[in-house]
């Protein structure tokens, strides 16, 4: 009982994910600042921002559904935290079962849908525009992402993340067999996180803050936390699916390699967000359905042929 609570609340559950999420935000902002020749925030800045947001007045425009608006960020946060619970951290996975990859993917798409609903219930013009855009974007990136993530599962003949990892221990990291799938999964992840260059639903100069325009105070803080935890969960998932390293003798060495891989992923995410310009929504839809989906299908076909 105590052990399960520890898994749930401390490691690899809530506390660990939240700390990693805040750490991700800091690293991302610091890297971006360095790319832009700025000093950047100190390490405690994300936490300070959270605390500041919690102390702010919490209000919504007239006509908004307060209950739903308060419930949505909490629902998203619990969804991504639950998803994070099933992802092995440096090979350590206390609650793994066959088929958990599908559960993770389902839970990971909850925040996007909640984001859409948040735009609708908070009645602002920009919120509705941003909500609609987030749904459009969801249809563009989600399909190639799902196809790309099913590649490793097909190759490993297992729909559990631990199963994919143990298959990689024998065959080697799957990025060697499906680099295309890895790139597609990265694009999908960027789309999921609504980061530059796929930050169409919250593009500041077009729709102000997107769905979250009208959110303030603690609700906004929770939304930020959702995005950060979602980012870190996505990074963990991609590292496990594509870059799993065979288990070392020493657990610290395994953890070190895992950490290094995550840092490289964050570096890639920050670099892409500062190098590419935002796409228009029609450009994104074209990219998603004309380029990414055929490529993803091609990758899966190659994987299936490899398995035969």
């Amino acid at each position, binding site marked *: 009982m105590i052990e399960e609570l520890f898994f749930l609340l401390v490691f690899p559950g809530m506390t660990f994910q939240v700390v990693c999420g805040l750490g991700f935000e800091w690293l991302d902002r610091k890297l971006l600042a360095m790319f832009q020749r700025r000093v950047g925030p100190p390490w405690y800045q994300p936490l300070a921002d959270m605390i500041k947001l919690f102390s702010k007045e919490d209000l919504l425009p007239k006509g908004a559904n307060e209950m739903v608006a308060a419930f949505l960020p909490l629902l998203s946060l619990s969804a991504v935290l639950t998803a994070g619970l099933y992802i092995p951290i440096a090979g350590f996975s206390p609650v793994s079962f066959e088929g958990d990859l599908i559960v993770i993917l389902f839970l990971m798409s909850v925040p996007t849908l909640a984001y859409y609903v948040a735009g609708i219930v908070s009645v602002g*013009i920009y919120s509705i525009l941003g909500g609609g855009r987030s749904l459009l974007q969801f249809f563009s990136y989600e399909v190639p992402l799902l196809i790309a993530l099913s590649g490793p599962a097909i190759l490993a003949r297992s729909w559990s993340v631990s199963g994919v990892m143990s298959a990689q221990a024998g065959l080697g990291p799957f990025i060697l067999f499906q680099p295309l799938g890895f790139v597609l999964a990265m694009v999908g992840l960027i789309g999921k996180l609504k980061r530059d260059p796929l930050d169409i639903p919250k593009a500041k100069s077009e729709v102000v803050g997107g769905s979250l325009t009208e959110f303030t105070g603690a609700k906004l803080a929770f939304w930020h936390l959702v995005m950060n935890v979602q980012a870190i969960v996505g990074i963990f998932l991609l590292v496990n699916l594509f870059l799993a390293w065979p288990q070392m003798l020493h657990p610290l060495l395994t953890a070190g390699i895992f950490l290094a891989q995550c840092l490289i992923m964050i570096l890639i995410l920050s670099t892409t967000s500062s190098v590419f310009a935002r796409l228009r929504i029609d450009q994104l839809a074209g990219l998603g359905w004309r380029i990414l989906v055929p490529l993803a299908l091609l990758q899966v076909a190659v994987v299936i042929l490899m398995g035969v």
Partner: protein
Amino acid sequence: MQNRISIPIGPQHPLLKEPLSMMIDISGEKVLGGSMRLGYVHRGIERLAEQRNYIQNVLLIERVCGICSHVHTTTYCYAVEALLGIEIPPRAQYIRALMCELERIHSHLLWLGILAKHVGLETIFMHAWHDRESSLDIMEAISGGRVSHAANQIGGVSFNLDKAQAEMIRSTISNLRTQVEGLLNVIETEPALHARTQGVAPVSAEMIRQYCVVGPIARASGVDIDLRRDDPLPPYDQLEFKVITHADGDAWARTLVRAQETRESLNLCDTIMRDMPDGEVLVRAPRKVPPGEAIIRSEAPRGEVFYYLRSDGSENPARVKIRTPTLSALSMIPAQLAAIQVADIPVVLAGIDLCVACADR
């Protein structure tokens, strides 16, 4: 076309740092049209100028615009000097031109940064503004003010350049040139910027003439006007430079025109520093201005600035009329807002390089 909604842009909006209010009608992701309201920063400067003397007005008119402050005072001072019938020393003319060109560099870099920011390239924004800071540093070091330089006086400029300062300007400009060259290479070859700006809301040369639009926007549509060449104030009649034009008239053409004008201005700065004559920078001007009228035009970073000055022989001007380039460009916005997407609104609005403070005065 049933679900037509209007989105407000401004006067407080992340897109426009300028106090301008627009209502844009959209349907889904399509823009149907728009209207706008002006006058949020009307300060009554023309009227205020009639209540102050000519010397105080130099500093008042510097506050017309926060970006192109120097070119406004330069034009005003040339107008007062025309009324007085005095000619300022050549060195003062060159220093005024130097400040004008530095201001053009800083204004164009600012604009390039803002455009990049609106299409999601925050990195280019930061790098452009970093480079722009060098040009501001020069102006701060020689005149004492970063934005409000207070460099002009009636009868000349308020400072002279010594050897060390001239050397500092030369070396800073050559550093700036390497930085700007790198930045402009990035901007001119960046495919993402190209994809977002090419073909967005092109403006034909006829439309430019119809709306009397001036400056880089007109030059980007193939209208070959530049007051530095067409009606030069001294010392531009002695300086060699190219007038950049482009045929397309879309946001990408405006980007290219401004990028190349920045290069051209850097060359001009070098020429000015090389050709600058020695001598005095100030002649004494009487406080009372004889009755008469004067019209002086000059080329600001955004286009033609027009000053009309009437004097009735007292210490205060009887009328100061200022026309700034932004007003005509603003009138063209509703026409440009047809048949574009919501994602193109920032590109269209930023592409014009609005300065609402100039337009409202």
